[in-house]
């Protein structure tokens, strides 16, 4: 059917849209159309005022609902090459500005641009629910997007490629990945997903197997979909940072040597995201996002190189600001005597090391393990909670840390319900119960404060006076 659109001359926003036949039949609509067409009006999108442009286009009726499954009887699919030639006023409005544009990129690839253009015009995503692809031998790493607009595209698959350590890519390897993307897919790469993968988009089902074979032949592996360990993200660490407290890159490499099966063969109640930050600056947002968060920490005071600090202050360093913004108020600067740190007040937060040239983190270094961070889960966002305040991270196999993490995930696997994220599981069973299950010795580092209610549970055997090892420290006080 023929459609008539009145669009903003500046940004292309469709202000009103009519079906040509209806317009001819309905006098009220015709009146409205003529009124809008001949009048100067303000675009509700870009707020520019002026006359509206008229666009006429032949469009197929929108097929309602999800993809029509009866593929065999329906007409042959419309290739997206035809649609690429269609008008894209919305996408054009997002291009040609000073900030790099994703629409310019999409247009250089085989991506069915009308899927995006129509979504912007209709203010609704055009992708559909679900989809399924089976690729024997590949248990994880392939995802499907089905289409709610089979007239534009039938849907597409994409692959999650685990990124190399430090997200460093050699140009040679990247060019070969581009070759694969051009040969088998849209030629569109998502260079780093927020989960830490490189995604290759738009691979027809029949191309999946050869694409996976070529990618693995190149030395990259796929995985990280479904209820498994998702791709772990690490901060740049010792590769290019003076603050890293442990070798995050080596740790991640060791992680994949030990847990690769759990990354590629889903088996847990829900996904488990892991992130490794080299220091409490947490550049990987592990505290907010990760079910398992390994964070570098140190226990002694930051090391001060007094001459270097003095030089930094003389060079214009704002030492007063740093002292006043120190969260523990632990920093004290006195000209002539130098910088001092009150160990009782220091929170080991990294602020001074970040800002002052000449202050570096201490040398008694290790890692903390935090669990249960998430941004939705069932009950909304939660920050991760400290499980182990300090462990030595011993390369090359980090056995102690990994053993601890494995114990946590086994307990999660054993006790959590289906589709229950670690954070929701902790909320349901309670942190005290979780510490008991994992065998963690309680220390004050585990809590921000002790509980304010007195609703403690005591097992009968804890109450029996004959019990030899009372968990209550009362006896120690009596001595």
């Amino acid at each position, binding site marked *: 059917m023929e459609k008539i659109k009145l669009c903003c001359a500046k940004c292309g926003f469709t202000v009103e849209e009519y079906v040509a036949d209806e317009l001819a039949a309905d006098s009220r609509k015709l009146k409205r159309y003529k009124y809008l067409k001949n009048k100067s009006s303000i675009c509700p999108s870009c707020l520019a005022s002026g006359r509206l442009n008229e666009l006429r286009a032949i469009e197929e009726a929108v097929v309602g609902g999800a993809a029509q499954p009866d593929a065999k009887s329906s007409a042959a699919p419309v290739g997206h090459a035809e649609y690429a030639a269609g008008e894209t006023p919305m996408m054009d409005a997002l291009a040609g500005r000073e*900030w790099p544009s994703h629409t310019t990129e*999409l247009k250089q690839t085989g991506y069915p641009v009308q899927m995006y253009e129509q979504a*912007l015009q209709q203010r609704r*995503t055009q992708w559909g629910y*679900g989809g399924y692809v089976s690729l024997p031998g590949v248990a994880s790493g392939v995802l499907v997007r089905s289409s709610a607009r089979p007239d534009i595209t039938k849907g597409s698959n994409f692959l999650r490629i685990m990124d190399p350590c430090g997200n460093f890519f050699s140009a040679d390897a990247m060019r070969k990945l581009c070759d694969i993307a051009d040969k088998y897919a849209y030629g569109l790469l*998502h260079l780093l997903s927020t989960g830490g993968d490189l995604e290759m988009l738009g691979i027809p089902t029949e191309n999946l197997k050869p694409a996976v074979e070529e990618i693995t032949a190149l030395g990259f592996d796929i995985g990280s979909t479904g209820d498994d360990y998702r791709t772990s993200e690490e901060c740049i660490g010792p590769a290019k940072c003076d603050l890293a407290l442990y070798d995050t890159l080596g740790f991640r490499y060791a992680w994949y040597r030990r847990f690769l099966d759990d990354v590629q063969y889903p088996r847990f109640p829900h996904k488990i995201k892991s992130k490794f930050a080299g220091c409490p600056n947490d550049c990987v947002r592990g505290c907010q996002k990760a079910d398992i968060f390994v964070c570098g920490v140190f226990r002694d005071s930051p090391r001060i190189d007094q001459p270097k600090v003095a030089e930094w202050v003389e060079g214009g360093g704002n030492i007063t600001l740093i002292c006043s913004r120190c969260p523990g108020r632990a920093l004290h600067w006195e000209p002539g005597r130098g910088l001092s740190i009150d160990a009782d007040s220091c929170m080991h937060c990294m602020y001074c090391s970040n800002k002052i040239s*000449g202050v570096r983190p201490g040398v008694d270094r290790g890692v903390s393990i935090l669990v249960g961070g998430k941004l939705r889960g069932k009950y909304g966002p939660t920050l991760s909670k400290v499980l182990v305040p300090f462990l030595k991270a011993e390369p090359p196999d980090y056995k102690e840390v990994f053993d601890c993490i494995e114990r946590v995930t086994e307990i999660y696997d054993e006790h959590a319900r289906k589709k229950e994220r670690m954070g929701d599981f902790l909320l349901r069973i309670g942190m005290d119960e979780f510490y008991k299950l994992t065998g963690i010795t309680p220390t004050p580092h585990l809590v921000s404060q002790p509980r304010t209610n007195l609703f403690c549970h005591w097992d009968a055997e804890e109450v029996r006076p004959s019990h030899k090892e009372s968990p209550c420290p009362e006896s120690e006080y009596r001595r």
Partner: protein
Amino acid sequence: MPGIGIPTLEASLPPIVKRNYGKWISHEHPRPGVIKHDSETGEACYTVRAAMPPNARVSTATVRKLCAVADEFAEGFFRITQRNSIEYVGVPPGRIDELIARLAALGLPVGGTNRSLHNTTCCTGYMHCHLAATDPAAIMQNVSAMLLREYQTDTLPAKLKISGSGCINNCGEGSCADIGIVGVHRDLPPIHVEKLKGCELPLVISVCPVGAIRPKGPGMVEIDPKRCIHCPACSVACGAFAPIGSADGDGVAIVVGGKSSNTGDGPAIAKLVIPYLPNNPPHWPEVTKAVKTIVDAWVANARLDERLGEWINRIGWERFFQRTGLPMSLKLVDGYDARALEYARSNVRFRW
């Protein structure tokens, strides 16, 4: 076939990193977009950081150009940062200007270091997702273009991170950032009765965070419209409850004050300050205006090294709403879970 694991460090790291691995002693920011690291070997490493298109979603044609730049300026390597910037590591100091000009010719502005707007991140939104209630990529294009100057200079009070998610699943990490733009649905999910037969109903009932989905006779359920919070949990769990949303129902919420670092006031999840703004493609003027309002109020009032959330912690929420002029509404008061009473106030230490 899969099972080989990730590439070795040996294969993925550039030579200058291998020479100085773990030997860095200090860093400084000689100019916006450039970071200098000094090593105990005496070597200095210059890194140049540039923005990427929203979502780091790039065509192979562009990637090949980025590779060519890497060959010319950075020994054939580049890296993608956690915030989707591209970094060239080990650029000879004499060639930084040349590299910045080359990146500008490719349309990539250099910046995003120290006290500046860091690169904006977002999820795929309308481009490739069936749950999206908004299109964060387009919003980020607009917001970033608006704040380009803040990206290229480092004159903000502290770093500013802006992220966008298409729905409250938050794959785009909206709730992690100083300012988060999160798509929200406001419609009830549909129930496609004909699809319920192939549906794991016990799972759907259990994933609903408010118990709004109730059994109604054998193999049938109903949704309590009074309880539904429009999270797409059921739409994710079963196709009978998808798709959720509509053109006029969907929109954008804005959250502020998220942060992951332990400096300052420590890690925090962002808090809701605007419950709904309409989707208005392609330029989302309401959203960009709201972001600008919040950023301007922060820049005008915050102290040095005070992230957005820390500024609010110091001045209090009553001052935040006063300074930004944003309206307070009942939608911003948590009535949802066990923490609901915790967020209501007990002290009377008001700021009038």
